[in-house]
């Protein structure tokens, strides 16, 4: 089967791996933001729309396995298609308006949203817009409800565990993180940090510019971080978890059967193994504090020394603007967020399992 398709399947396998998808989409986003003045033009956006649609249709149809096809064409997963298109097109629209506004500011012209004094009455201008939106939304939901039936699988059976067992689609990005982190981080700590971090945003972001209008140039760090966090670490991971994760949460590139017996032979190692066994050539110390000291030191350097170094170099202006407390909170959130892709990259390259692995107390990072 595989030999027939030959090098084409080899290329697909190369492109469709978690590492290439994650790093590739991050690179695309970085390029899009950097060259936004050319790439955010409507003509380029239409071009991107067609490329994305072609890949997406092919992705949905290329899943050869019966179960996989069921999942790709499963009515409950239709919202993912809706989410991908609406999210990417509105992310584009926001950037396109930002580019236009930044150009206007550079030329000394007023913003698109300028003219705070041109007020109109809520009745009729706003209530009519709301009414039209409600009618359109009602029609859309009704058509959707007629065309697609809500799924109903066989009755709940505690003895029959489906493989793969997947969370509701909007949590699949978090479920994907379970590959790289223990549940207490992927399922509790990171969601908690997302919530707390989002609430903290207005108190951390002291940049007074860009209040109430689309812009990129006036707040590049905030916008870039948001796009990366939402589009890559949330939306792309949901797509990956839905279409490319099969039985036992193994990764299946398009064109492969979802074989529940496929073995993923991976010998994952901890930082302690690398330090004590590979580097020093000895055995693991029996005391877990000593055993995990290399990882603890690494984390301490990561969470304390790097933020201090950043405050004196790259983030010097940010540090002055924020003050110590805000900067410290920002760094806890920022470095934790950054730890996610960093750990993913170490997993893909050196099969790293735990930086600190105190399995005795479920304290594994």
């Amino acid at each position, binding site marked *: 089967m595989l030999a027939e398709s030959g090098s084409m399947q080899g290329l697909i396998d190369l492109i469709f791996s978690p590492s290439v998808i994650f790093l590739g989409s991050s690179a695309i986003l970085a390029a899009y933001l950097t060259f936004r003045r050319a790439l955010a033009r409507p003509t380029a956006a239409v071009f991107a729309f067609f490329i994305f649609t072609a890949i997406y249709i092919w992705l949905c149809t290329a899943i050869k396995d019966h179960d996989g096809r069921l999942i790709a064409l499963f009515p409950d997963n239709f919202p993912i298609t809706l989410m991908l298109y609406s999210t990417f097109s509105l992310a584009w629209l926001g950037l396109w308006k930002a580019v236009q506004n930044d150009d206007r500011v550079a030329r000394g012209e007023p913003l698109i949203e300028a003219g705070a004094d041109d007020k109109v009455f809520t009745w009729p201008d706003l209530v009519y*817009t709301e009414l039209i939106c409600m009618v359109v939304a009602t029609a859309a939901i009704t058509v959707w409800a007629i065309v697609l039936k809500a799924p109903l699988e066989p009755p709940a059976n505690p003895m029959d565990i489906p493989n793969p067992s997947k969370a509701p689609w909007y949590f699949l990005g978090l479920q994907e993180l379970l590959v790289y982190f223990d549940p207490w981080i992927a399922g509790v700590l990171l969601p908690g940090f997302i919530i707390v971090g989002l609430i903290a945003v207005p108190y951390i972001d002291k940049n007074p510019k860009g209040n109430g209008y689309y812009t990129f140039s006036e707040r590049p760090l905030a916008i870039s971080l948001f796009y990366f966090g939402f589009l890559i670490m949330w939306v792309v991971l949901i797509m990956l978890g839905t279409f490319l994760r099969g039985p036992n949460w193994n990764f299946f590139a398009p064109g492969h059967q979802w074989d529940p017996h496929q073995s993923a032979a991976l010998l994952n190692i901890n930082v302690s193994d690398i330090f004590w066994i590979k580097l020093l050539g000895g055995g693991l110390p029996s005391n877990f504090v000593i055993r995990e000291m290399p990882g603890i030191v690494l984390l301490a350097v990561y969470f304390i020394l790097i933020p201090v170094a950043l405050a004196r170099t790259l983030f010097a202006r940010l540090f002055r603007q924020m003050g110590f407390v805000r900067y410290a909170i920002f760094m806890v959130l920022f470095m934790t967020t950054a730890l996610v892709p960093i750990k993913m990259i170490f997993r893909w390259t050196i099969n790293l399992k735990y930086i600190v692995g105190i399995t005795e107390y479920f304290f594994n990072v």
Partner: protein
Amino acid sequence: MSIMNRVGDWITGSQIWGSIFRHGAPKDRRTRAMVVLTNVFLHLHPVAVRKSGIKLSFTWCMGGLTFFLFLVETISGVLLMFYYRPVVEYAYTDIQGLRAHVTLGLLREIHRWGAHAMVIAIWLHMMRVFLTGSYKPPREFNWGVGVILLVLTLLLSFTGYLLPWDQLAMWAITVGSNMARATPVLGNEGPGAAFLTIGGAPIIHAGSDARFGLLAGTFVGENALLRFYVLHCVAIPLAVSVLIAVHFWRIRKDGGISGPL
């Protein structure tokens, strides 16, 4: 004067009409202000709004759409409650009956697709608010209220996911609620829980940890079904309603739809 106009005048001139609507048709500046000020639903809006702020290309209408979908979910949900019993014996068959025997059986479809659409709409609303910097002063607090509303929306969808009591429901909730087992200190398999002991006996075990609190049991069973039903139909919607009122009120008090200062 045509007969229709006469009837119209008779209706709008009556005491009943006058007791409900305290002003004439919104045709001039005064009545257009009055219609918003004297209506409990409309008065969540300011009387006048920024012209550039209500453009669809600026707001994407996603906040309004989220609220509208919440209303759709409330109405279709109340109707669904007439047909559904949250016990293991009947839950699944009630859903089957809803599909087979109820005239115009679109209720469940509308409820489910509306819920998915609401999740997407609230994310897009958040993206719009972030990209336009609308969380910046004076709207910091309202952004926080919005984040809580977003979390509650996801919880509403998650708790509703269990109610059909099919394989999809049971195992999606099993996967999701297994996370609670790993809560630091409060989870049976979370870091730190092992230190909480009384005379050597653990305080946090499978029958007392965060997951047990969520499911009212050690597995997804009948107690979990009842718990999720009550959370889904009563507790979370009440919290969401209160926070929506706060959210809308604060939009108004913080200066309406955002725009350049």
